[in-house]
């Protein structure tokens, strides 16, 4: 991405509305959003941290996930499917409590109108037991699925508490990619950033560069992730990486403050900084159109 693109992009992102990203890493004019026959929508939620308690950060911690579910259910265009990119639950050292939180999370999201739901764990769900409890409830932590010609690949960078993908999964990814055409549209879902966003705050994946290297030969790849509790857009070469907002508490911009402490709840603007996004996937154009929504119905 050159400087000019970057400035245009920042301007667009600052508008807070719809942002278009083409699979080639260039920005497309936001005007003229149209739904072609092959287009489909999916919704990304992230970092719901069910089980979190802390009134200064979110006095409605026991009700925000339900509000997010209601907000998604109220979308006029219901998505084809919904993804949750990790930290479904807030971490606990107690294995029984971890299971209780996963069970409650599962119950709450069963209220979503759309039943096609794809999940991946975050370090809060999986890092203390290498994903054991998570797998009991939701199965594999890395997998692929196809939707209307788009290849979705989920990558687990949290079951290893070191925050790495690991050799075995890299081999699996390499084998998976071998079967995919270089011109195909690929969407990667993961929890931690696959690039060094801000390693000082653990906003990185130890071997994320190896994943990016494997993806590089593919022309139309887009990565969606969570972990950093804010909207963030970054390119590694031609590959855009989009972080999603959380639905529990926002975190400060990378390196903007000395400590990675969550941003306190603002009583004058409740639920500020929380949200989810809708992704319009356009196989014809090989791109994705992102629309950000607040966590509560507007």
């Amino acid at each position, binding site marked *: 991405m050159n400087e000019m693109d970057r400035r245009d992009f920042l301007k667009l992102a600052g508008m807070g509305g719809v942002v278009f990203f083409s699979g080639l890493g260039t920005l497309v004019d936001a005007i003229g959003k149209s739904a072609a026959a092959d287009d489909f929508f999916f919704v990304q939620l992230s970092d719901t941290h069910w089980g979190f308690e802390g009134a200064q950060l979110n006095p409605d911690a026991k009700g925000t996930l339900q509000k997010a579910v209601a907000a998604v259910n109220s979308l006029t265009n219901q998505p084809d499917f919904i993804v949750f990119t990790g930290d479904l639950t807030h*971490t*606990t*050292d107690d294995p029984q409590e971890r299971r209780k939180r996963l069970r409650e999370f599962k119950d709450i999201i069963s209220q979503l109108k759309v039943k096609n739901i794809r999940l991946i764990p975050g*370090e809060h769900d999986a*890092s*203390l037991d290498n994903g054991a409890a998570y797998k009991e409830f939701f199965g594999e932590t890395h997998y692929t699925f196809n939707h209307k010609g788009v290849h979705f690949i989920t990558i687990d960078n*949290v079951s290893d*508490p*070191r*925050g790495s993908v690991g050799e075995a999964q890299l081999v699996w990814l390499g084998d998976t990619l071998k079967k995919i055409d270089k011109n195909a549209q690929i969407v990667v879902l993961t929890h931690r950033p696959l690039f060094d966003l801000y*390693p*000082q*705050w*653990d906003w990185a994946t130890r071997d994320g560069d190896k994943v990016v290297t494997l993806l590089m030969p593919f022309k139309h790849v887009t990565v969606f992730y969570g972990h950093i509790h804010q909207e963030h857009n970054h390119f590694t070469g031609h590959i855009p990486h989009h972080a999603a907002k959380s639905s529990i508490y926002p975190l400060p911009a990378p390196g903007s403050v*000395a*400590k*990675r402490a969550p941003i306190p709840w603002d009583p004058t603007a409740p639920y500020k900084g929380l949200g989810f996004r809708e992704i319009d996937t356009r196989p014809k154009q090989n791109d994705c159109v992102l629309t950000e929504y607040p966590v509560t119905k507007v």
Partner: protein
Amino acid sequence: MKKITIRPEIIGIFLIVLVVGTGYSKVCAEQQEQVIKMTAKKFEYSPKEITLKKGVPVVLEITALDRLHGFFCPDLQIHADLLQGKVTRIRVVPVKTGVFAFHCDIVCGDGHEDMVGTITVKE
């Protein structure tokens, strides 16, 4: 029964090696860098603030007391996994001055995110 013969000249050589060896390590110890002993446990380092001098090598000797932890200071490119019950030695030669944060980068429990510290490097 097999007889074991020990040739005196071999013992001689062995002794020389021992003496030379001890002398060598003594010289080394005198030249040796300052050692900073640290511990890591859920969810803190002790000490959590250390001060170093630019260009002066030190050895961090960190013991993980209760479980696996990490030690990561990206700005000074210090990165190590701290195995439980083991002393992890990391040689550091700070190349720049400033205050640099380090943290545990291996998820270790509810409180892991608070397991942080700073290295201050002075001129």
